[in-house]
């Protein structure tokens, strides 16, 4: 059974197709190691930019019926400081993906150049943060801007570049194609959806930023649809993200076309064992359905 769950994405060798999603816990070197020890196939850091940010005031995270809403505001120590911390890890046993954001194409390039000074395996461009004005999704909603960022980052570094897309667009395929034709090595889909919660007793939005990004179970069907559409439009690997909590969710995204899945919010419910449980669940599924390798189910839902 050795190798059954292994998957390769843009040269990154994953022991299984589960990846820690960016924005979740990946702010300290020690915790990235902890997630690796918990059985993840790869880890993604929290998004880091050129300059440090404090993030928004609380409330920054609030629960809804079927998921979690957050507007944390990209708090981070700045890429230079963060790279110093990441270097403490030495060599991680699994691939390490560093997520970066910027307020302009130049900032993405600058941050990416510094990011590769750390011992990382790939850079993920956060072109999809839904709650910081001028960064992330404001760039990621425009195919032209996405092309510009991806082309320039690709020219500046020699590590694989992943692009995380926002679902808050009318046609995600168009953005995915722009990223792919500009040289992206993989696409991560999707980031959170813009949403709001209003407390009816105090009659005001709960999040201090008022609008946040919705994650969790509520967005899984949207993630499945987005991955399915992107799979038909591009020829680079897709990393599925959105509401993955069980092996069933992971298998569903893989059948839609994902080569791996990212897991984030589910950690609040399942703890760190979610990585091992999802991976082992996929293994059992493969055995039961008679698939020899996890690669055999990628995009299977597209077959007539």
């Amino acid at each position, binding site marked *: 059974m050795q190798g059954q769950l292994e998957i390769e994405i843009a040269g990154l060798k994953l022991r299984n197709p589960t990846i820690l999603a960016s924005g979740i*816990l990946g702010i300290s070197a020690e915790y990235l190691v902890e997630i690796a020890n918990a059985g993840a196939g790869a880890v993604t850091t929290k998004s880091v930019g050129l300059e440090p940010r404090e993030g928004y005031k609380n409330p920054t995270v609030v629960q809804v019926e079927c998921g979690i809403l957050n507007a944390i505001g990209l708090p*981070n120590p700045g890429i230079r400081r963060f790279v110093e911390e990441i270097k403490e890890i030495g060599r991680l046993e699994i691939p390490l993906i560093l997520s970066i954001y910027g307020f302009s194409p130049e900032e993405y390039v600058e941050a990416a150049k510094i990011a590769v000074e750390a011992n990382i395996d790939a850079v993920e461009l956060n072109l999809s943060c839904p709650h910081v004005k001028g960064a992330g999704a404001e760039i990621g909603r425009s195919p032209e801007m996405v092309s510009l960022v991806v082309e320039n980052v690709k020219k500046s570094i020699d590590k694989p570049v992943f692009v995380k897309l926002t679902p808050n667009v009318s046609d995600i395929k168009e953005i995915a194609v722009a990223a792919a034709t500009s040289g992206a090595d993989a696409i991560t889909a999707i980031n959170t959806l813009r949403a709001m919660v209003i407390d009816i007793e105090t009659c005001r939005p709960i999040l201090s930023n008022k609008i946040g990004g919705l994650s969790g179970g509520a967005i899984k069907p949207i993630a499945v649809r987005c991955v399915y559409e992107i799979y038909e439009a591009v020829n680079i690997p897709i990393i599925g993200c959105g509401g993955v909590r069980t092996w069933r969710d992971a298998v569903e995204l893989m059948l839609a076309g994902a080569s791996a899945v990212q897991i984030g919010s589910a950690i609040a419910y399942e703890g760190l064992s979610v990585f091992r449980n999802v991976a082992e669940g996929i293994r059992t599924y493969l055995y039961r359905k008679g698939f020899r390798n996890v690669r055999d189910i990628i995009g299977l839902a597209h077959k007539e």
Partner: protein
Amino acid sequence: MGWHIKNNEMRIVKVHRVKAETRNVKTIFFEDELCASAEPGQFLMVWIPGVDEIPLSLSSASKEEASVTVKEVGEATHALNKMEKGNLLGIRGPFGSSFKIIGKKALVIGGGIGAAPLLMLLNKLLTNGIETVFIMGAKTRSEILFIDQLEALHNEYGLEVIFTTDDGSYGTKGLATEAAERCLSEKVFDSMYVCGKESMILKLYSLAETYTIPMQASLERIMRCAIGICGSCVIGRYRVCKDGPVFDFSQLREIRRELGKFKRNFRGERIFIEK
């Protein structure tokens, strides 16, 4: 499968009453069903609408009412201490680990506002028949908390209370850690329970190692989600919101290099803890 954590639901509660403890410390009482079953050491996220949301340990919890005891240190705590009967607060929780009773003889140490979660613990220890000594340390007389409640526990259960102040204005002059060291050298204890400044916790940790007495301590870090995913409160390989806030002896041993020395600021930068 539900994507819903019962305790994490934001509930809006009305302030029942406010009790002034000292010049800048108040206890705010409210009613909440989920808080009624809280354990000593657990915390709430308290939302002051329009201002901020901050983590606060419960200082009491019963069917009738629960409370948080707040020292004014910044904008959020200032707004909280301005609260009056009938004002609305949002609460999430109770979250996190709690103090666990070990053995029959307890030494409990609270430094300043760190005494807040310990009142609940003292009640639990004493009603479980644990012989308990409580050291309440503060800078000065006006910062000593819960004198009335401690006196009541002394009268009803025989709680031994030692007050220490840095300036000698109340109780013994000196530090709570010095009083703790005297207690440990004179008497045998089965367990130590601590909440207060981290420099104090660190000093008591080394005493606990010297006297080989299992120690539990409540730690504080910046918190945002309180459900173990944002990473704001990580210390070593632990999340204070989920694995803490109360850490046991073996966990404290694991994080001793960070304890009392480093924390993370809002940017997630590792910074020195000021002494």
